[in-house]
C-alpha cells in the first residue's frame, strides 16, 4: 500500500480552474466515498479550501491509480486538456511531507496562517466519518496534526500579523482587550476601511458608525456591517462615544485635527482612543497622536509592522522544514 497525493493550489492553478475542483465542506465525505470506489483505491481524504483541492490516497499500483484519478477528475470537471498541467503529484514520503507542510501553513498563500489546520482537520473528520480512511491515512493525518502543532509551538511561523488589517486589530486588542465593549467609527467608506472594520467586527467590536461624504455610501456600508450611518458633518459628535476610529477618506487635507479631539476629551473622561489612519494623504493630523490618551497609527507604520512579521515568518521556513523532516524520520509511517 502506497501513499499518494494529487492536487492543485494557488501556486499551480488560477482561480477559474481551482473553483471547478472546489468541494463544499458538507460534501467532503461524499467526495471521498466517490473516489474510494475507483479501482485500486483503498483510502481517501479530500481536502478543499479556497486556495487548494488535494486528494490523499492509500492505494496499490500508485502510477495507475493516479492516472485513473486524474481522468476521473478531468471528466467530472469537464476541463479536458486544461486541468492536467495544473496538477501536482506526490508519492510516499513526499506526499506525507507535503501534508505536514500544508497543515503547518508553510504552503499557504499567507505563510503560517492558522485556518488551514482546522480546514484539514475538518476534511479528515469528514472522510473518517464516511469510512474512507483506515490504517495508512488515519496514522498519517493524526501524525501530521501533531507535527503541525509542534511546528507552530516551537517556531515563530505564526507570530505577528501579516496584513495591515490584522495589525490594526491586534493593536486594538492590545489597547482595549476584548473588543466586545468597543465601538468603532469609520471615516470614509473605502475598501481598506471596510476590510479593517470587518476584522474588528469579526473579533467582537460592539457597534460600528460609518461616516462618509456621500451619505448613501455610508448607509450602504453601515447596512453591510450592521452599523449606523452618520452624516459627515456630524462625526465629531460620535467621537465622544467611540473607542476606535478608522479613517480613509481620500481627502487632500487632514480631516481630524487636534482641536476636534481636545473638544471631546472631557466628555470622554479621557478614555483611551485609537486612531487608525489608512489614508494617503493622511486624514489625521499627527498632532492628534501627541494627546495623552490617543494612540495614532498611520498606514506606513501598520505596513512596516506587517512586513516585519512576514519577513520573520519567511526566516522560519527552514527551521519548520527541519522539524517536519526530523519528526517524519522518527515515525516510519506506512505507505511512505
Amino acid at each position, binding site marked *: 500500500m502506497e501513499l499518494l497525493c494529487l492536487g492543485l493550489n494557488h501556486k499551480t492553478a488560477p482561480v477559474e480552474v481551482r473553483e471547478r475542483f472546489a468541494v463544499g465542506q458538507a460534501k467532503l465525505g461524499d467526495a471521498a466515498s466517490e473516489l474510494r470506489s475507483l479501482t485500486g483505491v483503498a483510502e481517501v481524504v479530500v481536502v478543499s479550501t479556497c486556495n487548494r483541492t488535494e486528494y490523499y490516497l492509500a492505494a496499490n499500483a500508485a502510477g495507475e491509480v493516479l492516472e485513473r484519478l486524474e481522468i476521473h477528475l478531468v471528466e467530472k470537471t469537464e476541463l479536458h486538456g486544461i486541468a492536467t498541467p495544473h496538477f501536482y503529484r506526490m508519492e510516499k514520503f513526499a506526499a506525507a511531507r507535503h501534508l505536514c507542510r500544508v497543515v503547518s501553513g508553510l504552503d499557504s498563500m499567507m505563510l503560517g496562517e492558522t485556518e488551514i489546520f482546522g480546514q484539514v482537520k475538518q476534511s479528515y473528520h469528514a472522510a473518517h466519518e464516511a469510512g474512507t480512511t483506515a490504517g495508512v491515512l488515519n496514522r498519517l493525518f493524526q501524525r501530521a496534526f501533531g507535527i503541525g502543532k509542534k511546528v507552530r509551538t516551537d517556531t515563530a511561523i505564526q507570530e505577528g500579523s501579516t496584513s495591515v488589517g490584522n495589525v490594526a486589530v491586534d493593536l486594538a*486588542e*492590545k489597547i*482595549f*482587550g476584548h473588543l466586545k465593549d468597543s465601538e468603532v467609527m469609520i471615516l470614509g467608506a473605502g475598501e481598506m476601511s471596510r476590510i479593517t472594520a470587518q476584522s474588528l467586527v469579526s473579533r467582537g467590536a460592539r457597534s460600528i458608525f460609518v461616516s462618509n461624504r456621500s451619505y448613501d455610501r455610508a448607509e450602504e456600508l453601515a447596512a453591510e456591517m450592521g452599523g449606523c450611518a452618520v452624516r459627515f458633518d456630524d462625526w465629531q459628535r460620535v467621537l465622544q462615544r467611540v473607542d476606535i476610529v478608522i479613517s480613509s477618506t481620500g481627502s487632500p487635507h487632514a480631516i481630524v485635527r487636534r482641536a476636534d479631539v481636545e473638544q471631546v476629551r*472631557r466628555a470622554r*473622561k*479621557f478614555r483611551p482612543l485609537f486612531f487608525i489612519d489608512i489614508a494617503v494623504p493622511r486624514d489625521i493630523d499627527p498632532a492628534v497622536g501627541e494627546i*495623552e*490618551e490617543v494612540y495614532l497609527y498611520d498606514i506606513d507604520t501598520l505596513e512596516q509592522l506587517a512586513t*516585519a512579521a512576514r519577513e520573520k515568518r519567511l526566516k522560519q521556513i527552514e527551521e519548520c522544514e527541519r522539524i517536519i523532516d526530523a519528526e517524519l524520520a522518527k515515525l516510519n509511517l506506512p505507505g511512505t
Partner: protein
Amino acid sequence: MDRWLLITATLLAAIGGAWGMISVHRGRRSRLTTLWMLLALLCQLAFLGMRGEARAACPLADRGEILVFLSWSLTLFYLLVGPAYRISLLGVFTAPVVVVFQTIALLPGVLDVPPVKLTGGNPMHETHAATSVLAYGALALAAVAGVMFLVLDRQLKEQHLKSGLFRNLPPVRELLVSLERLLWLGGGLLTIGILAGFLMPHDTAALGHLLAALAVWTGYAVLLGVKTVRGLTGRRLSLLTVALFVLSLGVFAFV
C-alpha cells in the same frame, strides 16, 4: 528560625521575578511566577505566625514586621488579582518590590531580635495596624499596575511593539480597570484603618502619624474623586498612583 523563613521567602520572590523576566524576555508567559510567589507567601505567613506567637499580638511592632506584613499583603493581592484578571505579568513587577521590602527588613536592627512579648494590647490598635497594612498591599499593587501601564503606554506611543515584554503585557483597558479597583479596595481598607486609629487610645506622640495618615487618605480620596467625577488619562492616573504610594510610605516614619 523566623529569619531563615524570611530569607527563604525573599529568595523565592527573587526566583519568581527572575524567572518571569527571563520568560518575558523570550516572549513567553511566566506562569511559574505565580507558583514561586505562592511559596513565598507561605513562608511569609509562617514568619508572621512565629512573630505573632512570640509577640502574643499582631506582628506589627517594629518596622521590619511592618515591611514583611506589607510584602505579604502585596503578594496576597497579587495572587488574588493576577489570575482573576489574567495578569500573570503582574508577578514579574510585584516580585522586585517584595524583594526590596523584605531585604530592608532583613538589614541588621530593622527586626527586633528576639521579638518582645507585647502587653496591654488593644483590639482597635490591632485592627488599625492590620487593615492599614493590608490597604498598603492593595495600594502597592495599584502602583505596580500603574508602572505596567506606563511601560505599555510608552511602547504603544513610541511604536516599539516587538519586545517580549510588549507581547506579554495585558491590554491598556484591563490594566486601568484593575488599577482603579485596587485603589478603591486600598482606599476602603485605609478608611477602616484610620477610623480604628481614631478609636484606639493614643497620646500626643502619635499626632505626626495621625496627620500623615490623614494626608495620605485625603490624597487617595481626591485621586479617586477626580477619576470618578472628571476622569483622568491613564498616564496621569498611573503617575499619581505611583507617586502617592511612594509618598505614603512616609507614614511609617512616624510609627
